[in-house]
């Protein structure tokens, strides 16, 4: 092989490699384009300034929430964070009521508080998972129940008003507002974090924790670290959500759990660990938002809510099946090894 030939084949190979590496993004991307086309035909006002602003406001909490549970999915195995919805609600309540009571309403205080509380919650959960070695699904399910119950105990009814600067996000009618800048900042943060060696360690731990362990990667702190990263985004997601609803609501946030998990999976994440992409999660979340947008442009009469339920479920199943066909079996095999063999040993 001449050096030149090898360079050419290297380039070809790296292109192929890049494409095969992005294969998990195929399903969410196709879905995204299809939904955009339907939206353009059926609800063209999406593409007006107001429409885009509305889309940003509506979709950003879910987008950031899905990003938040992505590191946990990457840290695997079976890394589904079910607690995200009630956790966002708790932070929402404390931003609106707790923080204003102490008298801090400035953006810096609110950001620090929201992110801090998110990190605290997630770190505690990560510690439980890592130290007790109880599976993520079980711990986050338990935390879901605890927080969901606690939220209504500490705040029985929706009330309060978010700081004015925050609640003004919800009525924005231009895309150039904090509702754009904050998620953009979150993406940048994600891009930075996901390039650190620490994040690579999380990914490799998700792929095989035994290998990570013998390579000297501290499992407990790495897993807690994955949750801390998640916590940062939980805080931001909760802020976006508070901006959207402008008040504290004890129950409305719980639905983010199922939406975010659905978005995560539609975004091509394998719950086996090691395989999930920030971009996929963002796409998945936007898909979920678009589905509900598109469905709202149809007049389903009395059955509208059932159609929404049916369509969301069906899209989830179809994209799972399509994703299973499109991606090769390696991720699945790995899952099997860990889910069925590794932990049972």
């Amino acid at each position: 092989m001449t050096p030149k030939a090898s360079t050419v084949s290297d380039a070809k190979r790296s292109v192929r490699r890049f494409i095969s590496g992005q294969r998990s993004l195929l399903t969410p991307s196709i879905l995204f384009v299809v939904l955009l086309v339907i939206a353009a035909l059926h609800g063209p006002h999406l593409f007006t300034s107001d429409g885009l602003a509305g889309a940003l406001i509506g979709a950003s909490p879910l987008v950031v929430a899905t990003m938040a549970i992505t590191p946990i999915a990457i840290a695997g195995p079976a890394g589904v964070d079910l607690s995200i919805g009630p956790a966002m609600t708790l932070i929402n309540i404390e931003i609106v009521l707790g923080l204003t009571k102490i008298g801090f309403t400035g953006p810096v205080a609110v950001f620090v508080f929201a992110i801090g509380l998110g990190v605290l919650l997630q770190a505690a959960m990560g510690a439980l998972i890592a130290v007790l070695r109880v599976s993520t699904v079980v711990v986050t399910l338990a935390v879901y129940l605890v927080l969901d119950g606690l939220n209504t105990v500490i705040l029985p009814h929706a009330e309060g008003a978010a700081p004015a600067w925050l609640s003004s996000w919800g009525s924005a009618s231009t895309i150039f507002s904090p509702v754009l800048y904050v998620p953009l900042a979150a993406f940048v943060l994600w891009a930075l974090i996901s390039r650190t060696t620490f994040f690579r360690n999380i990914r490799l731990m998700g792929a095989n924790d035994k290998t990570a362990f013998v390579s000297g990667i501290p499992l407990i702190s790495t897993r807690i670290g994955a949750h801390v990263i998640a916590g940062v985004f939980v805080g931001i997601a909760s802020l976006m959500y508070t901006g959207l609803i402008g008040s504290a609501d004890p129950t409305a946030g719980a639905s983010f759990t199922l939406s975010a998990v659905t978005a995560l999976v539609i975004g091509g994440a394998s719950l086996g660990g090691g395989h999930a992409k920030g971009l996929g999660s963002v796409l998945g979340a936007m898909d979920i938002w678009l589905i509900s947008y598109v469905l709202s442009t149809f007049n389903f009469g009395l059955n509208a809510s059932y159609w929404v339920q049916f369509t969301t479920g069906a899209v989830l199943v179809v994209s799972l099946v399509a994703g299973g066909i499109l991606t090769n079996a390696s991720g699945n095999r790995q899952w099997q090894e860990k889910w069925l063999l590794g932990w049972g040993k």
Partner: protein
Amino acid sequence: MTTTHEGQLGRAGRLDLRGVMTQHGSVAMAGVVLVALIAFGAFSIDGFWSLINLRSNLVFASFLGVATIGQTLCALIGGLDLSIPFVVGAANVGLVKLLNEGLPSGAGIVVVLVLAAAIGAFNGGVSHRLRGQSLVVTLGVGNAVLGLVQILVSSEGVSGISGGTIEGNIPQWIESLSWFNNSLGIAPAVILWAALTVLTILLLRRTWFGRALYALGGNQTAAERVLVSGPWSWTLVFSASAVTAAVTGILLLGYSGSGYAGVGDPYLFTTIAAVLIGGTSLVGGRGGYGLSVLGVFILTVLQTILSSYSLSSSAQEAILGALIIPTVALYARSPHPRMLI
């Protein structure tokens, strides 16, 4: 035992204490918790031992218990069925619709169960193919099914049938399934549950299929090498899960007298909680339905105690959640990776 035997055992790699622990430890643990709860309830709550309390608790337990059969089977092969609440709801309103269409009650139930089996089969087949994604597969299928059933059921839209709740002439015998003030002194639903419990435990312990499920949960590849078919088993198990969910839906229909699509909502997490608190691990291969029955009783008694203290349902939810982590941490922890190398 001779010395050679000891030597052999001693020399052998490592003794899996966890294996011994989980089987016997979790029975003991769940039993102790249950007895403690009952003792606490008996001492601190008026009327805890009253006949009506016991009988009505048994009826509640039987609903949860029947739905938990499926969840336990799924957990044993390493799956999770989140479609249970949706199937419960779909069977509940679907049956009323069928009865309103003039189908005899027996035929209606058969249709509902067959459809449920088909849904479960799809769940199992797809979940097996997408190894381990059963959590999201069943979630998606469940939503799609319940949405679709409600669309079909409320097709007339405005004739008094609305998707959420649906009224119809529920035959007396279905209603009487959950009555306990009958000559037996015990609700037929409880007897049905007891029968299903015996059947399930027999299936798991005494049939080759039951043993094959444990094998599948322990090591899928090895199970296929001894001719246990993964796809078939997953399909059958998830089918069974959907059927038991549908049975729960039908029992609940008799209990409340009218169809309500959201009737299954409490079963989303309580079935998992019952499985976990009993001591069946979610990763497969360890546990059994007997343990889940203990879990069901623990949950039921706990709920009685908490509601007798007038705790709101939110506070009850929080306490249930807080209970799960320590129970699981006591006897269903995963081994440290160092023990697996």
